[in-house]
């Protein structure tokens, strides 16, 4: 089949424009435009740098925040506990010594690294962005090639502002059509993971395209790209468009007025050529997606909320069958059970997946005028100081607090429970986060991943709810 060999995918364009040189026939050295760091995966990188007498090459392209460990009860480094405090202090000292800008707990805009990058205008189309955190894929929503790295790589980027890379395979996930009411980008990505599996994206960079993606806000696109790591993809990507440019304009680190037109002109060249060939193409009908919920202990163990928990016997692959059996035992579920009959103990609305203003609006519209069910502990943890202030200004915080939710300070919180926000053993949690792994939210914790609206509805009902079937949901802004 003849095709124009110069045709490139978006990923291939960004990759090619960042090649500094070749390290060997299969490995290129790529330049990194933005390096985001946080307290957990950076201290050993700074120690390594010091040990080798190296310095930070581009502190001006490096940005730090405190998020994983911080208390969300009080915005104080002392509230995090002793070992966490030491790690936070190490970050502050490393940033000061190397002149790296840091949004610490005294900064009004501090928050989760993947929320603040875009908010501060640090995330821009065409960039390569790395961070010692797997959910760096979030920034792909802007048409940036963004991926998580380990601590040795953090040290490498600090020293050289580059990273050795090999070309990944390309996957196109084309989602056309309109989403039905109450179906959110979270449901879309969970449905995609259910279809492709947790390893379906291994070795690939996934580009999301199609009319359903074009119709999404930047917040929605970030949720989508955020969880592309949950199908094993190296990165998620969405070609930038007017929605992207409008979001970036005016942000603190956005291109200044004198460069704006040139930047936009460049950004408009960032798309996959019409005749570019992807290694794999998957097509999904947006209208067929329904609200999703995980039933097991990895994100591919997911179903529509109105379905029944599957029987392990329904899996033909022996290892998948064993995994399902083990997952059901851990989750305390029986085959055939409906999760809409299942009580929840904890509701967590937050994380780099779903803690942005739009997520909080969606949750608040479900909660408004209602009360959290007796016996349910419910938390809202905004993704950043900016989100928190906006939610307070819009009256969302009051809606949550009046309903009985705890309204917290920004941080990663109960997504991974590195701080004191944990789910107890045996408790069932409706969570807007990204991983339902065993013990992720606390040893023995049972996590069900859902959208913000589904989590909010579960808090009110005290059990899981099919939000699409609910007729009495009050729209935002209306009086109950």
């Amino acid at each position, binding site marked *: 089949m003849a095709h124009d060999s110069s045709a490139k995918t978006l990923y291939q364009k960004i990759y090619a424009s960042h090649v500094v040189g070749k390290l060997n026939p299969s490995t290129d050295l790529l*330049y990194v435009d933005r390096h985001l760091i946080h307290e957990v995966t950076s201290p050993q990188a700074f120690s390594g740098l010091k040990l080798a007498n190296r310095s930070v090459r581009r502190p001006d392209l490096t940005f730090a925040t405190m998020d994983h460990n911080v208390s969300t009860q009080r915005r104080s480094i002392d509230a995090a506990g002793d070992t966490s405090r030491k790690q936070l202090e190490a970050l502050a000292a490393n940033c000061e010594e190397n002149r790296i800008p840091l949004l610490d707990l005294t900064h009004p805009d501090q928050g989760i690294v993947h929320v603040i990058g875009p908010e501060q205008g640090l995330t*821009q189309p065409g960039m390569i962005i790395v961070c010692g955190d*797997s959910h760096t894929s979030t920034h792909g929503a802007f048409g940036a090639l963004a991926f998580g790295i380990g601590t040795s790589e953090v040290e490498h980027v600090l020293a050289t502002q580059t990273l050795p890379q090999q070309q990944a395979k390309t996957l196109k996930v084309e989602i056309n059509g309109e989403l039905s009411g109450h179906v959110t980008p979270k449901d879309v990505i969970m449905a995609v993971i259910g279809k492709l599996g947790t390893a379906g994206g291994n070795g690939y960079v996934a580009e999301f395209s199609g009319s359903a993606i074009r119709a999404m806000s930047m917040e929605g696109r970030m949720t989508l790209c955020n969880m592309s790591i949950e199908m*094993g993809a190296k990165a998620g990507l969405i070609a930038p468009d007017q929605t992207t440019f409008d979001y970036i304009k005016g942000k603190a680190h956005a291109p200044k007025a004198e460069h704006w037109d040139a930047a936009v002109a460049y950004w408009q060249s960032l798309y996959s050529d019409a005749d570019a060939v992807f290694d794999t193409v998957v097509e999904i009908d947006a209208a067929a997606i329904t609200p999703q919920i995980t039933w097991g202990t990895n994100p591919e163990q997911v179903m529509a909320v109105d379905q029944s928990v599957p029987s392990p016997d329904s899996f033909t692959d022996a290892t998948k069958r064993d*995994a399902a059996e083990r997952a059901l035992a851990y989750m305390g579920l029986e085959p055939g059970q409906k999760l809409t009959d299942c009580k929840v103990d904890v509701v967590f609305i937050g994380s780099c997946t779903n803690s942005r203003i739009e997520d909080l609006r969606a949750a608040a519209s479900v909660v408004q005028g209602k009360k959290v069910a007796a016996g349910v502990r419910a938390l809202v943890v905004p993704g950043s100081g900016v989100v928190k202030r906006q939610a307070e200004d819009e009256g969302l915080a009051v809606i949550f607090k009046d309903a009985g939710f705890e309204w917290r300070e920004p941080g990663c919180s109960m997504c*991974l429970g590195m701080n004191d926000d944990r789910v107890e053993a045996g408790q069932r949690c409706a969570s807007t986060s990204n991983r339902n792994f065993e013990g992720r939210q606390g040893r023995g914790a049972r996590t069900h991943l859902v959208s913000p609206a589904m989590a909010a509805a579960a808090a009110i009902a005290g059990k899981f709810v099919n939000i699409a079937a609910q007729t009495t949901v009050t729209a935002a802004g209306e009086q109950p």
Partner: protein
Amino acid sequence: MSKIFAQGLVCPLDKNNVDTDQIIPKQFLTSVSRDGFAEAMFFDWRYLADGSPNPEFVVNRPEYKGASILLTRANFGCGSSREHAPWAIKQYGFTVIIAESFADIFFNNSVNNAMLLIQLSKTNIDLLFNRCQQGPQQWQIDLASQEIMFGNNAAMGFNIDADIKQRLLSGLDFIGSSEQLNPQIADYEQSRKASQPWLG
């Protein structure tokens, strides 16, 4: 230099999708050191709630004590990018992991810690698990010839990226080899500033 990269006892961990939260749970990530993670490896599986070793967990079984080769299934190391995961595995004593597939970030992190990760087809992984069912296995891994040697002249070949093989054999400094391109990095920065001044 010996052509044997590693030799020793094989521990079969018969699971798909072992994620990095299982390899090392969050409570151990507050450390600022690269050391001291051996005890944390597979913590929630390895220890019961009262802190005593879980006798059911394969790593704790007496016949696998001192194992240095970990055999497992698909998508090993998925999830978080925490390099604490390969640190814990290596500090426990495993220098080789054989699996059907690995998550990308975990794979890179392990290579950066001079560990050898061998990827094999499901059929071959099944064959290796079958061998383990016959009793504890002692294997040698020859990286130069890319073979897992079972003894008695029986062996299984494996593929490995030429660059990674070279790095593991030569022990090249990860950062140092990139720094040899410092002049090109400086050139790139100059042209980047000229063509896209908004990038900083």
